[in-house]
């Protein structure tokens, strides 16, 4: 099966799948290698390209690991803006998944609805980052700029509209016989196997697991926010659909709480007294001695986050310098695709599009 940028070699007997072999690497751009030659803030540009449907989520991931390696603490307002961005990005990513997935099933109308509603979120992103796909918004020590005037009001309108739309999505899909016939009971991956194969994210939660890093190991400000972990019990394609739909509703909940907090707490969005080599535009002048003998910190940063596709990780080794020595990313999609060896055999050839569609493949982050 070709989903644009990767291949799935399938061995069949008649109609039945016997074995599969995913082939990746067609989109390998060497992001980990390029990162070794770049300043920390320049790597953010690469993060948008790593996963081009969830750019802000990956920026958040890298920035937290980099800040840990460089011993920088961002102000709380920046943390809330990051979480707000990550959750809006989760909705946008899931809407993209929804559009592509229903198209795999042969339903064209929901595709257009999903893409249209995703554009509303992209409009929001454009209003404060300037970009619709590649944002380059977060920085070591905070975010590039504060939210524009009237943003929280517009954002509330959009998420209110989306909440109504989610009901319509469910009506479109769950009341459709075709949807159920193509999805129910397919691609079953039970929890113990999912854990053994390293599968994470909505795929794991559709098997009844409550594993969500936002709850299990709260990073950023997630410990101050109220939300529930979306789960399903069927472990099949329909279960993954239900989990992602519920996750979008929970993301709206988080977004609303963030907006309330941001309304009440104005403040700086960038850490103060950053060294100028970190790209701080307003580093204090006067003390120029650091230009002659720069004092670089060293450290290791590890951040693990619940990205829209699953559990993503960044491991940043800072050996004292303006560039990281090594950057390593964990891509949830790589592992979720690789586990196809477990959840595809036994089903029919015609079941491959719904099953692989339910994985939410983003080859950009898989190949890096």
């Amino acid at each position: 099966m070709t989903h644009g940028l990767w291949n799935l070699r399938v061995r069949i007997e008649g109609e039945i799948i016997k074995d599969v072999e995913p082939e990746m690497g067609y989109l390998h751009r060497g992001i980990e290698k390029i990162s070794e030659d770049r300043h920390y803030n320049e790597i953010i540009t690469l993060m948008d390209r790593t996963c081009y449907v969830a750019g802000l989520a990956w920026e958040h991931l890298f920035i937290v690991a980099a800040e840990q390696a460089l011993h920088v603490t961002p102000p709380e307002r920046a943390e809330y803006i990051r979480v707000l961005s990550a959750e809006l990005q989760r909705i946008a990513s899931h809407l993209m998944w929804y559009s592509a997935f229903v198209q795999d099933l042969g339903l064209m109308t929901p595709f257009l609805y999903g893409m249209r509603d995703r554009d509303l979120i992209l409009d929001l992103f454009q209003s404060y980052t300037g970009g619709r796909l590649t944002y380059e918004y977060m920085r070591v020590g905070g975010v590039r700029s504060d939210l524009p005037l009237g943003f929280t009001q517009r954002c509330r309108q959009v998420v209110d509209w989306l909440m109504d739309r989610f009901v319509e999505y469910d009506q479109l899909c769950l009341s459709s016989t075709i949807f159920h016939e193509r999805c129910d009971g397919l691609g079953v991956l039970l929890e113990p196997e999912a854990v053994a194969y390293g599968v994470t994210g909505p795929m794991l939660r559709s098997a009844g697991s409550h594993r969500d890093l936002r709850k299990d190991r709260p990073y950023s400000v997630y410990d101050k926010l109220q939300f529930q972990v979306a789960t399903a019990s069927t472990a099949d394609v329909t279960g993954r659909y239900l989990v992602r739909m519920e996750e979008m509703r929970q993301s709206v909940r988080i977004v609303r709480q963030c907006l309330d907090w941001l309304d009440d707490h104005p403040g700086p969005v960038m850490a103060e007294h950053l060294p100028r080599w970190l790209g701080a535009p307003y580093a204090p002048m006067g003390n120029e001695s650091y230009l002659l003998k720069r004092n670089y910190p060293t450290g290791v940063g590890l951040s693990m986050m619940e990205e829209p596709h699953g559990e993503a990780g960044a491991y940043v080794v800072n050996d004292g310098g303006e560039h990281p020595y090594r950057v390593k990313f964990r891509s949830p999609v790589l592992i979720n695709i690789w586990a196809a060896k477990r959840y595809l055999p036994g089903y029919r050839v015609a079941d491959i599009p719904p099953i692989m569609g339910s994985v939410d493949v983003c080859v950009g982050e898989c190949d890096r």
Partner: protein
Amino acid sequence: MDAKQLSDGLATRFPGKILGVDPLDGTLGRIRFDPAVATDLFRSLRDDYQFTHLTLVGATDWIDHREVFYVLWSDTDRLYLVLSANLPTDAPVIASSVPIWPSANAHEREAWDLVGVKFEGHPDLRRIFMPEGYAYHPLLRSFKIHEPEDLEVKVRSD
């Protein structure tokens, strides 16, 4: 469970093979171990300490040696643990963790492909991103970017 408790327990079990524990924010710590005991250590961590999830395997080229690191997750304690082992540059070989955690399969293939670390006992140690027949391991520090001959690679016959 804290880092001291874990490292003391492991040091009793594997005398002289646990080389140290470094603090690492957000995790239990970073345990440096002797690669000779890799398989037994992995099995002990999974069975005795409930590190049932393997999240990440990666490798770093430090020019005079190569480092392999593992990130483990314990669902009962809700903790990350980082393991790290140093391998000599001329023979970067370590036992595979696939028999213990099947999820290591793709990670180890990636570490072999990009950093050239060999995992003994891996069921299918092939390149994952680069084409078969590619002569380099691109994440090595000795790798030179922009070599035109890189573009000439063998194509698999199947």
